[in-house]
């Protein structure tokens, strides 16, 4: 299983759940990479959901498309990137009726961004189901230049926009769907520790 037990942290850090079947009029799934496994597991306990499910899936090099297709969802979209899927996601949320259930799974960056879209469409974030699977890399905002660096797996890292050496905080903004990166060597320029995996 591609699950990870996140250590306890501060109160702005999101807490991800695990999918539970809920009755609804329609089901929207947004997932990337191993996030597909959460959908497959849910379909095992609640196969009937799939007849009214729309799955938006970004494989990121994984191979779950065949398995997802075998669930016979009402709609399955397999896209090359989250950005490419965004117009479709927005249209789906715009057209949504009362009773739509939203399920997000996969990386934190994917879930955070899709949650922001759903919240902007008027769905309270607490009503959205989530399940983290796969990569623990983070979507990071540089507090200095405001640029976002996707899929940051190590701490510290170099901002992909301004080039500052940033450390990875647990402080998280739902509005930005990003964690905060702050200059690590401001008080000792050039003194940057060797990068390690975020939870190492």
């Amino acid at each position, binding site marked *: 299983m591609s699950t990870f037990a996140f250590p306890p942290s501060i109160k702005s850090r999101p807490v991800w759940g695990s999918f539970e079947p809920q009755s609804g009029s329609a089901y929207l799934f947004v997932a990337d990479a191993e996030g597909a496994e959460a959908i497959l597991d849910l379909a095992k306990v609640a196969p009937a959901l799939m007849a009214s499910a729309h799955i938006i899936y970004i494989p990121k090099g994984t191979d779950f498309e065949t398995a997802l297709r075998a669930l016979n969802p009402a709609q399955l979209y397999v896209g090359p990137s989250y950005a490419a899927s965004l117009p479709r996601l927005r249209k789906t949320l715009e057209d949504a009726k009362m009773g739509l259930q939203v399920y997000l799974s996969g990386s934190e960056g994917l879930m955070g961004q899709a949650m922001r879209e759903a919240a902007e469409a008027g769905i309270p974030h607490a009503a959205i189901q989530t399940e983290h699977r796969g990569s623990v890399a983070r979507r990071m905002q540089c*507090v*200095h230049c405001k640029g976002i660096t996707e899929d940051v797996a190590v701490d510290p890292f170099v901002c992909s926009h301004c080039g500052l050496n940033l450390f990875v905080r647990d*402080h998280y*903004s739902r*509005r930005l769907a990003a964690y*905060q990166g702050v200059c690590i060597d*401001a008080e000792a320029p050039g003194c940057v520790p060797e990068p390690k995996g975020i939870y190492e």
Partner: protein
Amino acid sequence: MTIQFNDETFRDDYTFRNSDWALKRFPFPFHEDSYMYSVNMEQHRGGPEGSVYEKRFDVDEHYVSEMRDRAQVLSEDPLRCQSLPHMTLAGWDVLELIMVSKSEDYPDLFELHRDGNRWRWINKPLGIDDTFTFLDEATLPYGPLEYITRQTQGDFAVLDQRDDNLWMDAGMVTTQADWSLDFDIGMNFFEWHAPVPMAHEKGIFVRALKFLMNIQQGAPARRLNWTMTVNPLLDTSPENYHKWGIQKTTLTPENIGAKQHLRVELQTFFRLPRSNALVFPIRCYLCSFQDLMTVPKWGRRLHRVVRDLPAELATYKGFIDNRPLMLDYLSGFDDGLPTSPGIWPDLETEPPLAK
């Protein structure tokens, strides 16, 4: 009294100075010889004459220069003032509260003339005389929150109240103790305080939230908070930390008295009438160690507080590396004599330094 406004800077050449008047009214934040987090709220209904508590929005000798510094910060980074779309009405509430308070509390400096929704606002220190239509944004050069907080010392967080929580959904933040409005906007009370160590475990935020959600119109509250800043730099923002952080390494035994500043926030909380939001002004006062040491009681007490502060708090407040240097300096002003209770300088009754 008529305030003589200083012409001074809070960056680069740092010409900021406190006059003797400003020093005597400095809101020294320690009411005893030690410090730990507490909710420490009291009603904000005036205070001793001349003190920073006396008026609803204190105006002092730094006013004009602080507003110039704010304009410069905003010109470099407009994201320091933001308001989510549902907060415009709260912005008008803030504008009204400040204009009414300042024109009543400082009639020689500010005038507000209202004829229905047609308002004329005169701000003499800043040379402003504007006529506008209340609740019509098109008649002001900025949104209402930005317009009035470009003319009022202190940062401003505007908090929406819903779902049994407070949400930081608007603000003007250019004199902050290292937090980012752009990052924190939209967060609830527990989320934006998430990085603060120890206080969550002590239940501080649960109690503070309960208190704040019950603040009523016409019954504002206040508290003091504090940190340390090297140089009288108002804009200690995370946005610019990669530029100012290095200044923390410039302290020496020779310059610490002049360079190291105690940074005090007078935080006040007002319920707003139309929006039911809370406005949370965070007013920053700076004072150099060498000026503080001219008050014997404050010298004794500051040494004891800094010495005994838990390492976790000194780290969070960003001065753990400089603490030994601070203690070397401050210990010279602590003769071990007892101190009187309360924050006031008590110059007439406290003994002079006996060493």
